[in-house]
């Protein structure tokens, strides 16, 4: 088995002839803390050579609206993970403050903001789609969305495109 021309392989790597893996990530929430998991998972999948499609529906449309993408917020009410009493979380300015603190923390760690994450995903070849029905509900048109969005799909289109993919719902 030894070749004199090329390095000899000891550990057999995983078969590269395997079909490409596919994931479909459904983003249904529009808060900052629920936007990042989908965006980061999508990017990590592309980094690993996995095909990625992302479907933004309902509140998830907040993530891909030109006006909103850079201004997502961290919820302080009804969010036990904030570890502050719900009544305090409802005070004016609390949400803005929590959002500012989180944004600052992320900047320190050099985590890209949401618009940059969307650009990274598009450059990485992830396919980004908006849900047509949710768009109608919120009276949005494609012009309201960031340019990285490839198209507007119905749920049926989504399942056609997601055939064979592992589906992640967020």
């Amino acid at each position, binding site marked *: 088995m*030894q*070749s*004199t*021309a*090329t*390095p*000899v*392989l*000891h*550990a057999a*790597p*995983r078969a*590269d002839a395997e079909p490409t893996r596919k994931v479909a990530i459904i983003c249904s929430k529009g808060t900052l803390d629920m936007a990042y998991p989908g965006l*980061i998972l999508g*990017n*990590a999948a*592309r*980094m*690993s*050579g*996995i095909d990625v499609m992302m479907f933004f529906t309902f509140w998830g449309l907040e993530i891909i609206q030109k006006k909103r993408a850079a201004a997502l917020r961290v919820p302080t009410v009804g969010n036990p993970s904030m570890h502050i009493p719900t009544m305090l979380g409802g005070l004016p300015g609390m949400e803005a403050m929590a959002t500012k603190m989180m944004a600052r923390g992320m900047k320190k760690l050099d*985590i*890209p903001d949401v618009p940059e994450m969307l650009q*990274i995903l598009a*450059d*990485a*070849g992830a396919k980004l789609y908006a849900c047509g029905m949710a768009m109608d509900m919120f009276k949005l048109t494609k012009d309201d969305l960031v340019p990285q969005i490839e198209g507007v799909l119905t749920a049926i289109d989504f399942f056609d495109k997601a055939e064979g993919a592992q589906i992640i719902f967020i």
Partner: protein
Amino acid sequence: MVSEAVATPMPTRDVDGFLCDSAQWTPALAEALAREVGMTLTPEHWQVLTFCREDFARQGVSPGVRRVAQLSGIDMKALYRLFPKGPGKLAAKLAGIPKPKSCL
């Protein structure tokens, strides 16, 4: 870039195919690893691999794709064109450095 005539034993690799010791990497090895995944390395690939190795030597950790795109002179789109099977893992693997820990 390769001296085909020299026989090099393949150093030990982990279960994902990454070299266990990055010091055992050679350019010939990168070419061999690339062939394993059906790739032929171009000067652009080498620009990425050289950056990855230098950055790993400086920082002690493998760079993530975003860092490579920002600093290597090869942008994000080009990285995915050069390494269609995933620049995150593949560039590090061919450069003989550990699997990147960064998700970006």
